[in-house]
């Protein structure tokens, strides 16, 4: 019909920027990962290392630990967000007085800078004047010290993530619930199905695409978390909250271990892409079943 030249011309600036700042670094990290390269070590320049960096990774306990910890964090926080978010979304489907006010206040954390989220939680939990340690001690006699107890630090980071992101899960599930056809639900109730049966056999299957989308987006974000955790605990105490993003950052920036850091970056990138791909396949499957 029309020539494609104009179409490509309109697309060109977008593609050019993505190629230069998006694709080029990807190739570069692939290349650097094959070398030993630390500008502040005594050997000069880049030394060819073939796959040695990758071999080192497989036996790197700290790296594997941090990968496991990130997975645990993502699993726990996303499960909590989904359960709480689903409950809250269901209460919002029907209109009630005050619903708009609740909703508006509730989504405030959603647009806050992650670094500011970290700052607010730090202010809450500082020993000395933070209200959390003070009231936990006064009311329950709990000794709460974020910088000392690993479990408390991990739990606090999970709660911070739940605080920050449950509004997103709630709003998205609410959008899904609102768009759901009403007739099957009413029909099922007429036929004598109880609430649990309706939820299990109608709501969940019909919500599957939205649920998977939410899981997909939240999982990816939880796996790449850095800013707020860095601000709250700096990955400590010890390595209790040193998730993979912080781990890579530590290896790359302060230690300037460029070759090994590149290999690590690429491996994590690869995991992410595989995970993305699996979730996309799941989404497509569900989409097909519905048609």
């Amino acid at each position, binding site marked *: 019909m029309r020539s*494609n030249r104009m179409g*490509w011309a309109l697309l060109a600036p977008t593609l050019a920027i993505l190629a230069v700042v998006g694709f080029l670094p990807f190739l570069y990290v692939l290349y650097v990962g094959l070398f030993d390269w630390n500008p502040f070590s005594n050997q000069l320049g880049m030394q060819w290392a073939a796959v040695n960096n990758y071999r080192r990774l497989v036996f790197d306990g700290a790296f594997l630990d941090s990968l496991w910890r990130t997975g645990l964090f993502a699993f726990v926080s996303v499960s909590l967000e989904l359960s709480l978010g689903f409950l809250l979304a269901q209460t919002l489907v029907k209109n009630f007085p005050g619903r708009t006010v609740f909703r508006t206040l*509730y989504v405030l954390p959603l647009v806050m*800078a992650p670094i500011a989220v970290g700052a607010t939680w730090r202010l809450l939990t500082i020993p000395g004047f933070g209200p959390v340690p*003070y009231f936990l001690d006064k009311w329950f006699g709990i000794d709460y010290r974020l910088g000392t107890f690993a479990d408390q630090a991990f739990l606090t980071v999970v709660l911070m993530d739940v605080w920050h992101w449950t509004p997103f899960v709630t709003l998205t599930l609410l959008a899904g619930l609102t768009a759901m056809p009403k007739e099957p639900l009413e029909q099922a109730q007429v036929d004598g199905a109880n609430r649990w049966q309706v939820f299990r056999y109608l709501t969940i299957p019909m919500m599957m695409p939205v649920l998977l989308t*939410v899981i997909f987006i939240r999982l990816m974000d939880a796996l790449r978390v850095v800013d707020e955790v860095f601000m709250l605990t700096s990955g400590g105490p010890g390595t209790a909250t040193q998730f993979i993003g912080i781990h890579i950052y530590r290896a*790359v*920036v302060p230690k300037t271990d460029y070759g090994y850091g590149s290999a690590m970056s690429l491996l994590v*990138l690869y995991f992410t892409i595989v995970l993305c791909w699996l979730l996309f396949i799941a989404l497509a499957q569900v989409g097909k079943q519905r048609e």
Partner: protein
Amino acid sequence: MKSSVMRNALGWVGLYGLWTTMIVVTIIPIYWMIVVSARSRVELFDAPTLLINSFYAPNYLKPLTDPIFQRYLVNSLVIATSNALLVTALALLATYALSRWRLPGADNIFFWTITQRMAPPAAFVLPIFLIYTRVFKIGDWTLFDTQLGLILLYCVFNLPFAVWLMKGIMDGIPVELDEAAFVDGAGRWTVLARVVIPLVAPGLAITFILSWIFAWNEYLFAANLTSVNARTITTGLAAFVSVTGTNWGEMAAVATLAILPALIFLVFVQRYIVTGLTFGAVKE
């Protein structure tokens, strides 16, 4: 009959109880930050109360009158605004092209870039840093520590999302409208300016605001790709922590200033935030 009234009443109590709890839990961390920002150092270490009795202005005035902090603020404004404008303009052209022409392979490119949006940003800090300091180098000038460097970089994160979001909106505008205008003798650019842009204007506004919020909020790259000249407000906020003897009141004040613009924007995009954050996959 009586029991159903009882159950109904219990339901209302439960509903309002749940939501009141949720709102209190949501608001307290933000409220506490404002409380801290209103107190002097001495007041802070009294027993914690949640009341604001006085307002200690120097917490706000000191950063706001400090030339270094002023530069952070200006940088954040310039970078977020330029990036959002650039992303919106490019996304408009790109989605117009994607919806009006059949361009083989173009969709795959965007699928690929969206996986980048999902990748841990820490994995990209190093390659971007090396490319900025070693590849884009003309004499002494590099992209490192420039506003331009961050403006371009944030395109990697904002453009794929903007294109996904705008594509759906653009596809909703019938091609017949374009063609009617062609018949009337309008050129390609006239059609874009007079027919398409007015129709997608709300979508452009959402794209602009969400891109702006992301660029304003970003920390990790801003911290590692700048040193002096192009530092942003988020890096300024993080700097409070590493310095010994933190002035918590001032930090709370800076954090409050840092979340203010995004909260104001939230008023405008609240209805579209789900569409934006799910890349258009879920519509509200």
